[in-house]
């Protein structure tokens, strides 16, 4: 094959490549534009309404911070945070809800994760059913669980705890099961050879390998659950979300602002603490390897 032939073949192939690529790009953009147009029609999206609404939104947000003067700083802030005792109590409730739901959900989900790992259970039926249960618990949003639990348990933090627990057990069960499926089979075989039963295999063969990952996922879950615990109150499931919901519904702007500030500060603090701890955990893990 001469050089010019090779060059011609290259040109041909490159042209082909360009053509397929162009076709895909055009298809992609056509699909995108179609989706965009349909979405605008379906939602009756109206730019004018957004533009008209924006000043009201900023106005709303500005009103959330009452005038605070330098000379009367203490008094102004004191007046703004008139409900601080009540709100801090709600905040404590929120944090404890998140804690309890994380503990319960992780315990139950962790137990189920052994049944949801293909390499650890012999029976396919057990594996399949556990996986589906976890999937349902995880896919139904926690706020929908909260609505259901409010029906059965009445308004209050109990419904919220249960809702977040169910969602957590679904998510943790799946994540832990994936960790379990990735553990080395050698320690398990060793324990079986030494005469251990299934529980021994799980306790001494799987758990030591999987524990660092479990811990890391659990800290991450705490962050998520604090967020969830602040919003399940919107449907009556307790926590500071309830105070926030009523203050926005009743247009008590300053109250809403004060509560939002507490919520954001808490969430950021929890995220930072948890992230630091997770990094330490991962650092340790890498050191020991």
């Amino acid at each position: 094959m001469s050089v010019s032939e090779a060059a011609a073949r290259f040109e041909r192939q490159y042209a082909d490549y360009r053509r397929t690529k162009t076709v895909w790009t055009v298809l992609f953009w056509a699909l995108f534009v179609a989706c965009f147009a349909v979405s605008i029609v379906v939602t009756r999206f109206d730019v004018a309404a957004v533009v008209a609404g924006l000043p009201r939104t900023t106005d709303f947000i500005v009103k959330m911070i009452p005038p605070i003067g330098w000379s009367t700083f203490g008094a102004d802030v004191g007046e703004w945070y008139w409900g601080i005792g009540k709100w801090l109590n709600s905040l404590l409730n929120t944090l404890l809800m998140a804690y309890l739901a994380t503990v319960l959900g992780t315990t139950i989900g962790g137990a189920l994760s052994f049944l949801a790992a293909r390499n650890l259970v012999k029976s396919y039926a057990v594996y399949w059913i556990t996986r589906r249960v976890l999937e349902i618990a995880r896919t139904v949003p926690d706020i929908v669980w909260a609505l259901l639990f409010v029906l059965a348990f009445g308004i209050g933090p109990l419904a919220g705890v249960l809702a977040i627990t169910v969602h957590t057990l679904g998510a943790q069960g799946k994540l832990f099961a994936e960790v379990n499926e990735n553990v080395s089979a050698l320690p398990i075989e060793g324990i079986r050879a030494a005469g251990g039963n299934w529980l021994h295999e799980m306790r001494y063969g799987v758990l030591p390998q999987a524990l660092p990952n479990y811990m890391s996922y659990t800290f991450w879950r705490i962050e998520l659950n604090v967020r969830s615990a602040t919003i399940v109150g919107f449907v009556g499931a307790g926590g500071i979300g309830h105070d926030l919901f009523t203050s926005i519904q009743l247009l008590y702007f300053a109250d809403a602002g004060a509560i939002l500030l507490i919520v954001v500060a808490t969430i950021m603090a929890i995220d930072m603490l948890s992230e630091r701890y997770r990094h330490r955990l991962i650092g340790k893990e890498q050191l020991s390897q």
Partner: protein
Amino acid sequence: MMPTPAEIAELRARLPRTFSPSPRERLRRLLLWGGALALTVYCLDRFGFFTWNFADGVLKFGSVVVSQLFPPTGFDQLPMFLRVMGETLAMAFLGTVLGAIVAFPLAFLASKNMMPFRPLQFGTRRFADLLRAFDYLIWALIFVRAIGLGPMAGIMAIAIVEVGTFIKLYSEAIENLDRKQMDGVRAAGGNRLQIIRYGVLPQVLPMMVSNTLYMFEHNTRSASILGIVGAGGIGFLLADRLRAYELQEACLIIIMVVMTVYAIDFLSKKLRERIIGEERREPVADDHPQFVASPGPKAR
């Protein structure tokens, strides 16, 4: 060769630390686990797990709620449900796209390697954090109050959280890019615009598209619940049916939502695999956007 029990006992006496942690470490662990357990029991008590009310609730949940959920009914309203489900998807789509459009230029401001003026870079990042710190439902509540009930409030809520998320995700993609390609374009005589077009975009665009698709997937879930506070979409119908105790119709809606979420997950995963070219490990899809960029330990 197996050590005899006597040998083991002798070793244990000589090297106690090899067999068990130090007393201090043991005390620390005991306090930690004991404290956690005590707090758990306290919480159980505080939230009323040890009351008859709880037992009642369990019975009620089992017998009334669960048995009344099935079988799903309301199939005569299916066309209306489907229309509202479509509206939900449209909300997720528009919210994600609007967020992406606004975030794209801001992401360059928030990247250390693109924005030499530190305070502006830092400020943009913190601004993004602030937008992201509030949940979709909180923004939805605010927008419902400001621009009225309906899907527009939901779209705005999704868009504003996404601006924050995309600034973070895009700027991380931009900061991770390889300088060599930019240098190459510069060495070949490219100007600033050409450097961005041929040196930067080809590297970051697949990541950005993939992240955007992932967030669209995530936002389908969010959009389906925003209606609970009146911000449009299927959540409104769901909350309405639940509060009216029409549990069987609510069941049909929940099944529709779950199936839609699965379908979108599947499609988006296939598309993302095509775009990125390899299967990347994703965090659980129902989690908060904040963690898309920093999934669990295994992905590191």
